């Protein structure tokens, strides 16, 4: 494992560009992730978050720009980068046929950890999976799978962990479990790069938030800085997925507000008019 120099960013991305045929997905992306911090890359679907993640984890080559992970160049020093980084994909990549414990042992063997079995047991314990460790991962709930997935990325103590939309598709309970785990990770000194499309997730977890929109970072700062930079009026920069409530309201007519806000004294004629 490489020793990190003090002050050197865990991740440094400069002028990163990537196109797929005609489509410019990344159009010059720059950001740094400070060691031991949680950095959130916030953006809507298709903003380019996963492309950044795939370039950082050496799964994809950039067209231009540089990306350093723990000081190593993703293009020139791919092997060192793979030592330093661990990826947790958007679609929890666990082996469904193997048990939770076997999944962990597999990764431990591949990363050539000294005692794969003991490492696996310790992680099962840490992530509250000891009881289900012998069961096939295919039988796990969404939250358990994601926990196992993240546990697998921790093997070998990589200094940088990338979590690509770690809570997408999870129920509220699973989401809270994963959040607690990410906080625990950063507490141990691991640098975390988190991509998310959920504003509250970035708000809850991140030391620093960058907003990726149409292939560019359009804002980058702490939550407090962003709040100053971007008053509510400019929140339109981010395409927020509509909630069911918003969809519902849009369908029944934009004039109607939420019931809680309208409990004052609605005009008599309007109430009558709406009743068949």
């Amino acid at each position: 494992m490489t020793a990190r120099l003090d002050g050197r960013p865990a991740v440094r991305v400069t002028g990163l560009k990537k196109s797929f045929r005609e489509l410019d997905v990344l159009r010059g992306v720059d950001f740094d992730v400070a060691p031991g911090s949680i950095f959130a890359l916030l953006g809507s679907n298709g903003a380019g978050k996963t492309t950044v993640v795939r370039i950082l984890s050496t799964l994809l080559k950039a067209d231009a720009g540089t990306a350093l992970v723990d000081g190593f160049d993703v293009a020139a020093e791919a092997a060192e980068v793979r030592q330093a980084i661990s990826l947790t994909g958007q679609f929890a990549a666990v082996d469904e046929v193997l048990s939770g414990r076997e999944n962990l042992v597999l990764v431990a063997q591949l990363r050539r950890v000294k005692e794969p079995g003991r490492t696996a047991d310790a992680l099962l314990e840490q992530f509250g999976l000891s009881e289900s460790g012998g069961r096939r991962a295919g039988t796990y709930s969404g939250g358990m799978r994601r926990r196992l997935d993240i546990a697998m990325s921790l093997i070998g103590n990589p200094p940088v962990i990338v979590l690509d939309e770690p809570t997408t598709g999870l129920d509220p309970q699973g989401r809270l479990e994963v959040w607690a785990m990410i906080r625990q990770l950063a507490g141990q000194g691991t640098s975390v790069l988190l991509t998310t499309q959920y504003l509250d997730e970035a708000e809850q977890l991140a030391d620093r938030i960058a907003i990726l929109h149409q292939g560019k970072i359009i804002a980058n700062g702490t939550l407090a800085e962003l709040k100053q930079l971007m008053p509510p009026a400019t929140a339109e920069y981010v395409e927020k997925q509509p909630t069911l409530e918003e969809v519902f309201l849009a369908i029944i007519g934009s004039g109607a507000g939420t019931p809680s806000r309208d409990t004052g004294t609605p005009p008599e004629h309007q109430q009558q008019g709406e009743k068949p």
Partner: protein
Amino acid sequence: MNTTTTHFYGNTAVLTRRSLRHILRSPDTIITTAVMPVAIMVMFVYVLGGAINTGPYEYIDYMLPGILLITVASGIAYTAFRLFTDLQSGVFERFQSMPIARSSSLWAHVLTSLAANLMSLALVVGVALLLGFRTGAGPGAWLAVAGMLLLFTLALTWVAVVAGLSAKTVEGASAFSYPLIFLPFISSAFVPTDTMPGPVRWFAENQPVTSIVNSIRALFTQQSVGADLWLALAWCLGIMVVAYALAISTYKRRVS
């Protein structure tokens, strides 16, 4: 890409153990691989075989080599399927993002394919023995048959790797094997080629299955193998080299 090649063998062993575990946990893939060839064998031996003149040979002795090739052709469909599933599920990407020899994840599937097909082949030979297959072949001839089947499996496995890597759907990943399963029917596997009409006969006599079937049949019946063996080896090696090159270039495009 000379990185971590030193760990290639260790990584490949670990990953092969993983996919072998998949097979042992769902042995149905071994059995379903064997079911179709066994069904074809039963039908030919008990229904159609009586009307086919195979000279001095018992019909089951005559057609077993073809059945074994059909077994391999249907077995490699699962190789493509397993590879495709790994690519779809993200497991493959996880391995690719780890500090391991990248080609290990491909070789693990290839070795697993060999092991799985050997198990299916053993099963089919076992059933054939129950149905009355007999051979006077000694250990040397059996070894030669096993070697020939292994080479054939390896060649078709690389074809399956190309299919698994380039497929867009599960169906696409295994559909490539259907023509391969059909190929032995237009060869010397089930009926002597001299009863076939001109162009069909020409095709049957010049396609790879015929030389492989003739070689294995000669080994089982203790005849001299002759030129068929070299032709069979050339076909297998040729298919393997072309499929391997295609597989590697498809793989490089896939993992960029």
